[in-house]
């Protein structure tokens, strides 16, 4: 059995929080360049220009890309043959968030839902644990902003509604969200499972790289179909019109009850900040 000191987890998490909030993933930046070159609406091109300049400035100055540095969300795959020494793994991750958000001068956005009093250190973070074979620890971090999260929805469709029902719900959601979630967006879609599990699938799907292929050819075709349809809505960057309403669509499915068709749409803003580490 391998052992891992919890201090290693704290430092790795702190590092991811800081780095992810300053440097936009390369696949997202590449997607900006590709989409911008297809735009003919001047406002759309200007938004892409500003977003690209924003990336350069954040990297140069150390300022976060966006003032909303997110609620810290994690997907953790813990190898069952790994022993963690020191802190409990949840404490270690939260200590890493405290350290990263403090040292990186990141905004603390976590608050009590009733009193709205800020918890002061951006914890507790939202952590999804999975126990997997092996002796390594894989932690994926997502700085999830509130504006795009507010535009996300979950619904329980009737099985009879099928793909057409799914398609309409997603398109309607993106249309209603309009300029609010900072388009161009990434749309994470979770289908199946239960009322609580579909949104987890949707959020996890957002960790995939933009422009990658879904390993399931059927889902891959549906992602492409939905992306094309979403972009026909014409909302465009920041809602000012154009070809790029979404940068990509990511779908994940799981079997569900014979009575149900759970569907979750998790919207991610263009500042798609996430990072992964294996320890």
């Amino acid at each position: 059995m391998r052992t891992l000191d919890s201090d290693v987890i704290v430092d790795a998490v702190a590092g991811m929080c800081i780095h992810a909030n300053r440097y936009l993933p390369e696949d997202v930046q590449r997607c900006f360049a590709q989409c911008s070159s297809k735009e003919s609406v001047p406002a759309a091109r200007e938004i892409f220009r500003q977003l690209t300049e924003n990336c350069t400035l954040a990297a140069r100055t150390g300022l976060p890309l966006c003032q909303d540095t997110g609620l810290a969300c994690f997907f953790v795959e813990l190898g069952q043959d790994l022993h963690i020494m020191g802190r409990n793994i949840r404490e270690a991750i939260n200590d890493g968030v405290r350290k990263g958000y403090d040292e990186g001068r990141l905004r603390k956005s976590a608050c009590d839902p009733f009193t709205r009093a800020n918890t002061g250190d951006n914890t507790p973070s939202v952590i999804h644990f999975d126990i997997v074979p092996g002796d390594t620890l894989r932690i994926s971090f997502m700085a999830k902003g509130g504006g795009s999260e507010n535009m996300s929805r979950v619904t329980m469709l009737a099985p009879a509604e099928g793909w057409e029902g799914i398609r309409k719900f997603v398109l309607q959601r993106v249309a209603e969200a309009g300029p609010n979630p900072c388009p161009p967006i990434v749309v994470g879609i979770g289908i199946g499972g239960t009322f609580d599990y579909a949104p987890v699938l949707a959020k996890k799907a957002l960790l995939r790289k933009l422009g990658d292929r879904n390993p399931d050819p059927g889902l891959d075709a549906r992602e492409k179909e939905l992306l094309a349809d979403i972009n026909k809505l014409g909302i465009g960057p920041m809602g000012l019109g154009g070809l790029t309403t979404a940068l990509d669509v990511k779908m994940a499915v799981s079997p569900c009850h014979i009575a149900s068709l759970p569907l979750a749409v998790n919207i991610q803003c263009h500042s798609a900040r996430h990072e992964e580490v294996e320890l």
Partner: protein
Amino acid sequence: MAEYRMNAPLSDADAEKLRCGDVVFLSGVIYTARDAAHKRLMDLLDQNMELPFDLKGAVIYYVGPSPAPEGRPIGSAGPTTSYRMDSYAPRLHGLGVKASIGKGRRNAEVINALKKFGGVYFGATGGAGALLSMRIAEARVIAFEDLGTEAIRELKVSEFPLLVINDSQGGDLYVTPDRKAVGLE
């Protein structure tokens, strides 16, 4: 669509000549306030108490900045989504506020208040917080310090880049999604 350089606080004439689609580079003094600060402003108004800044011609920026790093007045400082302030905005426009800065759609009550009181709603680019921070020369907390990022700050801005989304004539720049194109209508 015109391009203007204007100073805040805004005059009635400046606010009324703007049309949706115009680009404005705004300099001068503006005030930050988002959800929690708006709620406190309403409480002060309800109790007939003095507000922390003069509303006449005021421009309110919906922003909760990240902490200022060493040597800079403010951290990243882009707009937050405006609809959450829709329930407060008409009352503030009625008391002299000329403009707000945010991102995303406003409701009919806000659009009517802009018409009635000659106001304007500016959009700034969401998610461009580092870029917009560069146009802020000074920042000072003037009220509700306990709210942290949500405190009211007086900002001195220089050529802050804005786009007129809603004007005093009822104009709206945001695109209506083409639902027909995808069979939703």
